[in-house]
């Protein structure tokens, strides 16, 4: 195996580029401006980022989700535990944290963690609008922003396409006014793909969020190629299928050939399968464990699998 040297492929923007070689090292070099050198070459391995197509801003290929895991209410002990997960995430070079008003107390818990950690300047705040009333969108986003305790959100997406016809104009207006930086839409578990395709074709989106994993690959057929064509960043939710996928594969030993893609554990294996797809910006696994967040961030290090390796990985998971 050799490292690919084509920088246009590293950014995932080459329409004809094929993933035949590992891409890790130069992905990191394309990333670089915002990341400390120590993170770019942690453990002697390059740190992998991808550019947001609409701006070129680089983000690490692994983010942090908050669905269920950060919804701990007013439990101070659990809030401190979540803050430690966030600390582990940022210490490993992480940037994007994702939440939604639908996720119970997750926004408050993220706000608590950010405050406790001294508001890390590199945090990339990704939230959603989730309200059926179009006129209520701005107020909900403002309430969410207060819960996070940030000056503005980097990304606001329409959650599960709820009232997207009303919310997208609001979000584009907020982006134009500098109140948010990026606009997106989300869905999960393969729902409403036809509708999301239509939105991707007609609206000037920066981001789209969908579900994708080694065992749930529907988006490969149409959504991911369309995102590449339209220059839309793709964020992947539920990469471990809420833990069921990783729990099931962990019963088996990691195949020895996984080391060819610098995968030291199953989390890295599953995440590298996802983020090695050229259309994907990052995956956002959620966890309550500092050890697990470190494992997840390990997928930002070293080489990524090429197309042949990706096929081998998915075939192996199918066998398991």
């Amino acid at each position, binding site marked *: 195996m050799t490292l690919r040297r084509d920088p246009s492929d590293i950014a995932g923007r080459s329409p004809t580029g094929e993933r035949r070689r590992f891409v890790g090292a130069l992905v990191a070099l394309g990333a670089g401006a915002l990341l400390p050198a120590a993170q770019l070459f942690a453990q002697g391995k390059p740190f992998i980022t991808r550019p947001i197509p609409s701006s070129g801003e680089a983000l690490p290929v692994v983010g942090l989700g908050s669905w269920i895991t950060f919804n701990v*209410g007013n439990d101070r002990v659990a809030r401190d535990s979540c803050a430690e997960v966030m600390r582990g995430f940022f210490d490993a070079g992480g940037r994007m944290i994702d939440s939604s008003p639908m996720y119970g107390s997750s926004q408050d818990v993220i706000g608590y963690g950010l405050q406790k950690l001294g508001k890390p300047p590199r945090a990339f705040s990704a939230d959603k609008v989730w309200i059926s009333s179009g006129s209520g969108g701005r107020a909900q986003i403002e309430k969410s922003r207060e819960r996070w305790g940030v000056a503005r959100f980097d990304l606001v997406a329409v959650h599960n396409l709820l009232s997207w016809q009303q919310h997208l104009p609001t979000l584009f207006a907020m982006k134009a006014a500098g109140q948010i930086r990026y606009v997106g839409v989300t869905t999960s578990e393969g729902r409403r793909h036809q509708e999301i395709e239509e939105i991707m074709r007609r609206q000037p989106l920066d981001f789209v969020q969908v579900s994708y994993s080694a065992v749930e690959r529907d988006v490969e057929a149409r959504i991911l190629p369309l995102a590449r064509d339209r220059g839309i960043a793709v964020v992947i939710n539920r990469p471990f299928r809420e833990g069921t996928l990783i729990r099931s594969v962990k019963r088996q030993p990691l195949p020895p050939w996984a080391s060819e893609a610098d995968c030291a554990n199953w989390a890295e294996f599953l995440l590298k399968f996802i983020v090695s797809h050229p259309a994907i910006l990052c995956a956002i696994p959620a966890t309550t464990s500092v050890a697990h967040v470190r494992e997840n961030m390990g997928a930002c290090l070293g080489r990524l699998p090429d197309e042949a390796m990706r096929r081998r990985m998915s075939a192996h998971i199918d066998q398991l």
Partner: protein
Amino acid sequence: MSEWWTYSLSDFLLFSRRTYYRLFELYNVDIWPLQSVALALGCVILALFWRPRAGQGRFIAAILALCWIWVAWAFHWRHFVTINWAATYVAYAFGCEALLLIVFGVVRDDLAFAPGSVRHRIGFALVIFAVFVEPLIAPLVGRGLLQAEVFGVAPDPTAVATLGILLAAGRHALWRMGIIPLMSCMLSGAVTWTLGSPDAPVILVAALVVLAVAATKTARKA
């Protein structure tokens, strides 16, 4: 909601099992020592229930209504809502049940019992179970006594005890005042089942026992 058939209950659960039961722990610490008051009220209900006396139905209904209002406000409205925004609606439902108990149980005195009958015995057993056994389930399955669910302050034992009383009071009382407790049991059973709690079947079995006994009674009358 389009593609509704693709959703399962787990898609609507916003919290983990650990967070859910930790909520009971924090709640119990927060309201201590009200659990002992609730336990005493449970004993009063059992005493009134077992030995007929004037006004027993009204008194039992008043105690139950007080418990439902407390659970609506203290548990659902103030605590559960911190991890589940839908708890607000459940709080309203529990408030409605308190209102039904006041209207039909206290004002109209619809709770009349027939001691010695099968449904009275089963109802009594359900109240015993709710007051004395349900709080022990948490420690028995390894969650610890702090996470105990106590009659009068936690939803499940309060709903089971209410169903026991209504079952003994007859099908009119059950259908008038039992729908919300039954739905509460089913919902709680479904949630804990989805969370993978080992004791999830308990609340479902309790609700099914009530339905089965009520259905048997109805079938015999038909």
